[in-house]
């Protein structure tokens, strides 16, 4: 079983390694505040929120698709990106730079080169003062991409954390895994508080993937790679992980449904972060 787990873990880790990065970090110093797919005001974050951002630069060469302005009169609408620049790159990728102090820098430009200054992080959008909102849209596939898939790899060694894992029966009975050793057979919804930190700031960030392995086989996986839409509702990878389901529990993340059969069940939860660090927790459950 250990061998199988090792192979699965290795394959997952390899699949998580970001593809050859196509974008550059749009800020000089990286202070991650919120990551892609992270719980944010009952919804999922659509990109990265970078604190103390200062000067914001284009992540790649591209054409300015549109600039958005903080609405200051009655004829527009109050976009929550505030002053923002949206750049179109090759392969139908769009990069979005929100919460800028102004868009004057690019007023007369139609193209930008990688590293060109777009503005400074400001107070124009819905986020913390001085933070910067960065999103990546795949226009052709109609998805929002995790920017970390395309940005240079973060060099950090902190493992994610897995806490407060519970299994909830269809009747609503909650079992704290780790405290209970035996459980009735049947369907359970799994929830856990999974978070990552990358520096001493202590900002709790979302992981890059959470995988549930039951008795040696991958059972469920929550991939923080892309967001899709279905009839006006967003979901993370699979319609099973809509924001209201994924973050329906105010303290934990929904990991999926498992079926525990009679006998001994080994349940492993593995959390990965974008730097490839991982944390796993094993629960041995005697099921009656």
């Amino acid at each position: 079983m250990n061998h199988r787990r090792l192979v699965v873990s290795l394959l997952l880790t390899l699949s998580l390694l970001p593809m050859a990065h196509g974008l550059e970090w749009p800020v000089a110093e990286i202070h991650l505040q919120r990551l892609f797919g992270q719980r944010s005001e009952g919804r999922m974050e659509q990109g990265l929120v970078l604190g103390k951002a200062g000067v914001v630069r284009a992540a790649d060469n591209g054409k300015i698709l549109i600039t958005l302005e903080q609405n200051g009169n009655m004829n527009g609408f109050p976009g929550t990106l505030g002053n923002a620049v949206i750049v179109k790159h090759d392969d139908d990728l769009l990069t979005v730079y929100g919460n800028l102090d102004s868009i004057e820098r690019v007023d007369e430009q139609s193209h930008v080169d990688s590293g060109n200054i777009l503005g400074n992080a400001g107070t124009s959008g819905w986020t913390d003062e001085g933070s910067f909102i960065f999103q990546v849209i795949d226009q052709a596939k109609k998805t929002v991409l995790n920017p970390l898939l395309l940005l240079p790899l973060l060099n950090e060694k902190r493992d994610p954390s897995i806490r407060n894992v519970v299994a909830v029966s269809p009747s609503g009975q909650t079992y704290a895994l780790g405290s209970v050793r035996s459980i009735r057979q049947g369907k359970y919804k799994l929830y856990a508080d999974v978070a990552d930190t990358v520096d001493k700031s202590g900002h709790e960030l979302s992981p890059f993937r959470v995988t549930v392995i039951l008795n040696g086989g991958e059972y469920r996986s929550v991939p923080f790679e892309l967001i899709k839409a279905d009839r006006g509702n967003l979901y993370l990878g699979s319609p099973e992980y809509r924001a209201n389901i994924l973050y329906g529990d105010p303290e934990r993340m929904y990991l999926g449904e498992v079926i525990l059969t009679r006998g001994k069940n080994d349940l492993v939860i593995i959390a990965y972060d974008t730097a490839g660090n991982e944390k796993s927790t094993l629960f041995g459950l005697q099921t009656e």
Partner: protein
Amino acid sequence: MNIKGNLKYTITSSIVFLLIYMFVAAIPIGPDLYFEPGWTRDLTQPLDSPDTPLVSSDLSRPEAFILGSRFGYFAPDGRILRNETSNMRISVSPWAWAVYPQDARGTGINFTDGSPKMTISESGYVHLDDDRVFLFLPGGNGIRQYDRSGVPMWTREHTAPITAFNSSPAGAVIGYADGNLSFIRTDGTEAFSFYPGGSNSQVILGASVSEDGTLVACVSGLERQRFLLVKVTGNQHKILHHTWLEGDLDRQVYVNFEQKGRYVFFETSRGLGVMDCKRLTDWLVKIPGRIVTTGECPGDSIFLVLSKEGDEYALSAVERPNHLVASTRFAARDAFLLQRGTSIYLGADSSISRINIRGLE
């Protein structure tokens, strides 16, 4: 060859032709159009009647204004009914107003007289459009509409930022950075959602919906930017008309139907486009700068345009189809234009003026 005789004949014929032409082709000369100053109010002065209620019962619809950090209401007769300043974000409509911070996590909405109307408990930016309440959700790609008691009616999220928005009693039209254009009825059902395409880069730069919800217009795309007019019938939609535009604008642009829905105004890189939705013809009025707003069309013959170029605003009067009758420029940080029939309300920084259009009757 009798040259003298021919010349005589030619001159006589010409005179006869001119006489006939003068009577047959004559067009009655319209009455002279002129602008008559009404009143001007200085918003730095105290309210006119501080002891009386801010909104009197005979005012069914006060006019709302925002001028930079100043907002409030005024009556057609010139009474300033509310006049406040705020460093926060402001949304104001003839029905209600709200102020909220950059990271609003709940917003109180007040009636025009200041009494509390409802509280939106979710995070985001409140947008009041007449008696409609919207919340733009954090992240830039979601919107929610509430009923008059603050209960969510529908929520719409998409995989690209919202770049255009407009609403009417019939519903809301939303344009996105990936080129999607969606029309959501007030009950939350989707009338249509499609990608107009046709340009090298897809994006919706501006959109509007008519009062009755039967027409939607947008400006879309870069490199072959175009204007589209879409007819909505039940669950069907059809592109009634499209026009390729010369040059590109790569910013949010002005698109707006006049209240009757006969004409729609749209901003282009060369000026203001005007579309006659009945005859499906469009024309261009060369107005430099950004279009801030357009006025209604009293008598269907003249409309006003407020535009901004650099630090100056310009108020232009245009006679259909595209005859620029008059234009005046003024320096201001903030300005607004409201046109109610033959009455114009023009705000500039700390003053509001009423101007009456005369000579149209």
